[in-house]
């Protein structure tokens, strides 16, 4: 018979449970969401928004995004088990039950809403929750398995943190916030289609109609070029509307040219899809860090 004391004090078990729940939150994806939130706050404030507000907003955004990621894994449990890239996740490996993950996700989402409401304002809290709900209901449940436009429209959920950041500072959502939203929106399809090029067979096996799976990688890359051109145009519109200056413009143009050349080159080198995927993360970070740096230096 096992002693209760032994079970309670088993550090490996405690660690693995914590690790499992941290894994469900997909903190690496959230990192990028936060990189877009803070510069939006800096732009809205016309300078540093203050440590207290910055911390409160980032924590609230993390809770909402983590909740969305956890709930999404409940919806995707079966398809995740079919894909090499995702079959090691907590649900496909049976490390945790669907019920527990769903509860965890809902609690995190609710905590994010109330935290943002209490520490920032109701608009930021509502926007953050709209992001969570649209990710779960519009992207995961409605679009992901039924249309090649899944990541295009579904990508709007990932763009919401820019609105949350702006709203947390101003209690409103003005034009520059929507332009930042559009930057993330147009960045999302090339970013995820590169991943789909690399993991084409996985998506095919799971029955997820990612564009490269349905029309072939070459044609999907032509779509990526089109979205990249629109993306670069939108980054320029942010400068034209006034909240940022020449430092931002310099980075937006140079990084934009680099991103376009990368997208174009990918058409002949699909084997470089993961390099491109990584660079696309760097590109978005450059754009948003440039927003913050520009405002902080020039203001």
């Amino acid at each position, binding site marked *: 018979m096992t002693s209760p004391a032994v079970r309670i004090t088993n550090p490996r078990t405690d660690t693995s449970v914590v690790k499992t729940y941290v894994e469900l939150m997909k903190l690496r994806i959230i990192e990028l969401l936060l990189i877009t939130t803070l510069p939006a706050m800096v732009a809205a404030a016309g300078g540093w928004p203050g440590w207290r507000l910055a911390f409160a907003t980032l924590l609230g955004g993390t809770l909402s995004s983590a909740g969305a990621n956890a709930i999404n894994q409940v919806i995707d449990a079966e398809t995740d088990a079919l894909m090499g890239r995702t079959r090691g996740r907590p649900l496909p490996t049976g490390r945790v039950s669907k019920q527990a993950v769903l509860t965890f996700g809902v609690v995190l989402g609710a905590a994010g809403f109330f935290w943002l409401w209490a520490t920032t304002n109701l608009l930021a809290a509502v926007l953050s929750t709209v992001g969570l709900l649209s990710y779960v209901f519009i992207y995961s449940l409605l679009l992901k398995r039924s*249309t090649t436009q899944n990541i295009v429209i579904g990508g709007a959920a990932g763009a919401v943190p820019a609105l949350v950041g702006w709203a947390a500072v101003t209690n409103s959502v003005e034009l520059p916030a929507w*332009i930042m939203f559009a930057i993330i929106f*147009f960045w999302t399809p090339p970013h995820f289609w590169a991943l789909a090029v690399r993991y084409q067979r996985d998506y095919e096996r799971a029955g997820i109609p990612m*564009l490269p799976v349905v029309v072939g990688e070459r044609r999907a890359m032509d*779509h990526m*070029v089109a979205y990249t*051109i*629109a993306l670069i145009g939108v*980054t*320029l519109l942010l400068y034209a509307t006034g909240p940022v200056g020449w430092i931002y413009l310099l980075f937006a143009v140079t990084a934009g040219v680099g991103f376009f050349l990368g997208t174009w080159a990918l058409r002949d080198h699909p084997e470089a899809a993961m390099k491109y995927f990584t660079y696309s993360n760097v590109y978005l970070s450059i754009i948003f860090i440039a927003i913050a740096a520009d405002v902080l230096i020039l203001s």
Partner: protein
Amino acid sequence: MRDAVLIVGTVLVALGLVLILWRELSGAAERRKTGALRDIFEVLLPVVATTALVVWVWVV
């Protein structure tokens, strides 16, 4: 300077949207997994929203 960037940005967005529409609609039969109406709605929604955004930028 800002006016020049506004024009270049607008041209690039317009070019991107035209290319997106052309790519999405010309290959619709092969790409489409849903009904035609829903597909057209899904393709047009981001294009119309972005056009509204650009108009807003010009008005402001």
